[in-house]
């Protein structure tokens, strides 16, 4: 099944049409049932080692600090809430939502963030029909793994080259959001193309989601920077959390 | 209170001081004692050290100075398992305490931590939920409960550990009048029928005279006065200094007495008491309805 070139414009406009539907755009989470079994399984396999790594870190750190698990659970709840915040995206005329994993990653480290994201994604799939069970692996890779590691990576690199921390937090938010969006587009294009023509779908999907996701990413950057600034000024002692063992 | 031997104090804090890391002196040489089976209220305005005292009494915070003894033993000698079978803590915000997904699971949390067999756990969950009148909530999700229900389930979660003392932080704060009365009657029943010692930290004064055996007034981390409700509320000046007030009904009678010269004997603290005293002053001919206490 190939996508002819003539379909490019129609393709983009169709996907863009999706964003004009009332209610929440499902840009960040891949809906249940859309991935063929092989791809669904593949993304589970990709996510698994990161989850195992995160669980190991969780065990080690909660062994050392008894209240660590409560902290992780609560930060997980906060990520859940952040990713439920409907954000109006004027360019697309609809609502979308941030993913919050970039911010979480600079606070509790990317490894633990993957664990937290997996719990939040399962609950959203079960009780909000947001994302899905069969696409849990794919969503975890895009939002948890890519979002968290890119976010905290961007933060660390930015701090290394002495970019002020406010800007570093902003970059972490932007990079993690865009990374999530690009990964989701790749996952979708690979699954929808069916056979070897995924490259031809990747760019159209990326382009179709761009009107929502590009401003949303910048927005997520502001969210991360604002939140980081608030935490830093009100509770500077919390900033020692990730520096101690950021797991990167 | 004098002449009581050391062992008879179920809870005994002596010279307890606590300073928070940022420098706030929350407790300053507090002496606080409770007998077995007593109902004691710690009465104080906001920020006077009530919650800190509770945390020190329950080992959640370590006093910088002074000692806390539970049933005659220093609190530091207790394992957490043994300690929390002695004393149960109910926190002010039930959301702090109800962390499981369902009511049954949450109430079972404590008994399971004690390593009890499952049949006993279930039994305790039922008994505790029945005691607080929440047996019908057993299978509900915690976040679907009303605030009052959450408060009662939080008490059940602590009761399920069958402690000999119950320490509550603002047990009635945020409850509507009916919920407040329900909670106070529940605590009274647990205290009188089961002999559970109750320590209630609060700033609401109206219901206390009905239930508390003794009241301890705190101000800025120090004990201002300790005694029966009568002794506490007669000291009008001290009450005001502590940022508190008389129960409304007592306030009314106090003003009638002081400013209008109405000859009221003593200072009634409850509505029933006040009614009795006022009726004594009204000529019988003016009273149209049947007056129950006179008939008796």
């Amino acid at each position, binding site marked *: 099944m*190939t*996508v002819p070139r003539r*379909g490019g414009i129609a*393709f983009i406009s*169709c*996907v863009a*049409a*999706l964003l004009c*539907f009332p209610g929440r755009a499902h840009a960040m989470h891949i*809906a*249940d*049932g*859309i991935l*063929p079994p092989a791809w669904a399984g593949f993304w589970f396999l990709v996510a698994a080692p990161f989850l195992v790594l995160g669980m190991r870190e*969780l*065990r080690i750190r909660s062994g050392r600090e008894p*209240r660590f*698990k*409560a902290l992780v*659970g*609560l930060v997980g*709840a*906060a990520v*859940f*809430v952040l990713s439920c*915040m409907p954000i109006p995206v004027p360019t697309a005329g609809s609502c979308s939502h941030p993913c919050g994993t970039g*911010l979480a990653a600079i606070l509790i480290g990317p490894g633990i963030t993957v*664990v*937290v994201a997996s*719990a939040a994604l*399962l*609950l959203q799939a*079960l*009780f909000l*029909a947001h994302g*899905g069970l*069969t696409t849990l692996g794919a969503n975890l890779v895009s939002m948890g793994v890519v979002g968290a590691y890119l976010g905290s990576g961007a933060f660390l690199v930015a701090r290394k080259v002495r970019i002020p921390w406010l800007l570093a937090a902003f970059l972490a938010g932007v990079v993690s959001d865009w990374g999530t969006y690009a990964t989701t587009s790749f996952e979708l294009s690979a699954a929808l193309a*069916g056979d070897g023509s995924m490259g031809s779908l990747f760019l159209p999907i990326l382009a179709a989601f761009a009107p929502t996701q590009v401003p949303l990413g910048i*927005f997520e950057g502001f969210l*991360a920077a*604002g*939140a980081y600034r*608030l*935490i830093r000024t009100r509770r500077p002692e*919390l900033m020692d959390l990730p520096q101690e063992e950021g797991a990167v | 209170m004098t002449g009581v031997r050391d062992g008879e104090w179920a809870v005994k804090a002596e010279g307890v001081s606590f300073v928070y890391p940022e420098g706030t002196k929350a407790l300053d040489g507090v002496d606080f004692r409770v007998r077995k089976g007593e109902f004691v209220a710690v009465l104080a305005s906001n920020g006077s050290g009530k919650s800190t005292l509770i945390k020190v009494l329950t080992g959640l915070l370590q006093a910088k100075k002074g000692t806390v003894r539970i049933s005659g033993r220093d609190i530091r000698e207790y394992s957490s398992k043994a300690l*929390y079978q002695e004393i149960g*803590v109910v*926190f002010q915000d039930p959301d702090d*305490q109800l*962390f*499981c*997904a*369902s009511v049954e699971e949450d109430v079972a*949390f404590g008994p399971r*931590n004690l390593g009890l067999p499952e049949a006993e756990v279930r039994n305790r969950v039922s008994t505790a939920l029945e005691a607080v009148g929440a047996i019908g909530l057993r299978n509900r999700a*915690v*976040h*679907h409960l009303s605030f009052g229900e959450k408060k009662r389930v939080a008490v059940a979660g*602590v009761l399920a*550990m069958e402690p000999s003392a119950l320490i509550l932080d603002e047990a009635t704060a945020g409850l509507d009048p009916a919920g407040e009365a329900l909670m106070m009657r529940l605590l009274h029943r647990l205290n009188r029928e089961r002999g559970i010692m109750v320590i209630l930290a609060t700033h609401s004064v109206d219901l206390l005279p009905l239930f508390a055996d003794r009241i301890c007034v705190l101000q800025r981390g120090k004990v201002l006065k300790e005694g029966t409700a009568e002794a506490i509320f007669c000291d009008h000046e001290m009450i005001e200094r502590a940022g508190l007030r008389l129960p409304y009904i007592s306030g009314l009678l106090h003003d009638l007495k002081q400013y209008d010269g109405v000859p009221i004997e003593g200072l009634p603290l409850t509505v029933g008491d006040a009614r009795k005293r006022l009726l004594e002053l009204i000529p019988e001919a003016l009273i149209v309805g049947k007056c129950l206490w006179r008939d008796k």
Partner: protein
Amino acid sequence: MTELFSDIFAGRNDVLTRMDARAKVACAISALLAVLFSRNALFPAGVFAACLSGMFLVRIPAKWISFRIAGPAAFALVLVLLFGFTVGVTPMASGSFAGIRLTLMEEGVRRGLLLGARVLGATSVVLLLGAVTPAHRIFHVLLRAGIPAEWVEIAMLVYRYAFVLLEHAAEVSAAQRVRLGYSHPAKSMSSIGTLGGTVILRSIDQAVRTHEAMTARGYTGSIPFGPMASMGRRDRWVAISVPLLFLTAWLLVGRGQG
């Protein structure tokens, strides 16, 4: 912000909520697999219809169902159009829109229908599962299925405190709104950052208090989950027969290319 979670229906007492959670999860997983492996649109559409009937059977409001299904349904429609216009060689219908000539292809429509039906089928399965199974029962099943207890503990805390934090976030954002915190795009950005920060700060404070409350009830590092009651005969029968039914239906209907 005040999203209606499907678990509001799970507290009811009806034929589906009474069923053992393990049986329900087994049914749901088999249905999901059958939908995922189906090669024609008919089979997932049948699963979708069955789940809808199930939801109507236990009187879940149609308004709520349509609200939750709207997103996936829109997505399904887009898939049909998307593939219809771009894939295939056999024209079905054509027309022009704003000067662009568009032709709907049969092969593309078919593929779009299959994918769309899969989305609707799978979403409705998960929706039904979530609407008739309380979260704590699902956590128990996960434990039984060998998911590490630490993970389940985290998931339970996320579930429990998401509601507390949602309420808190709604209050903070209302407080910002009534003091014109969102009156200008720049102000909105700053307000939303503060909102996100407050939610995280609150979550950290709540973690400290929750841990204290846990300690006061004997917590020593892991939440003890009780055993699950053994499955009744009827539920055991359901747990075996329904997946078999899905397998048979898949062999008969779902396997063939439509």
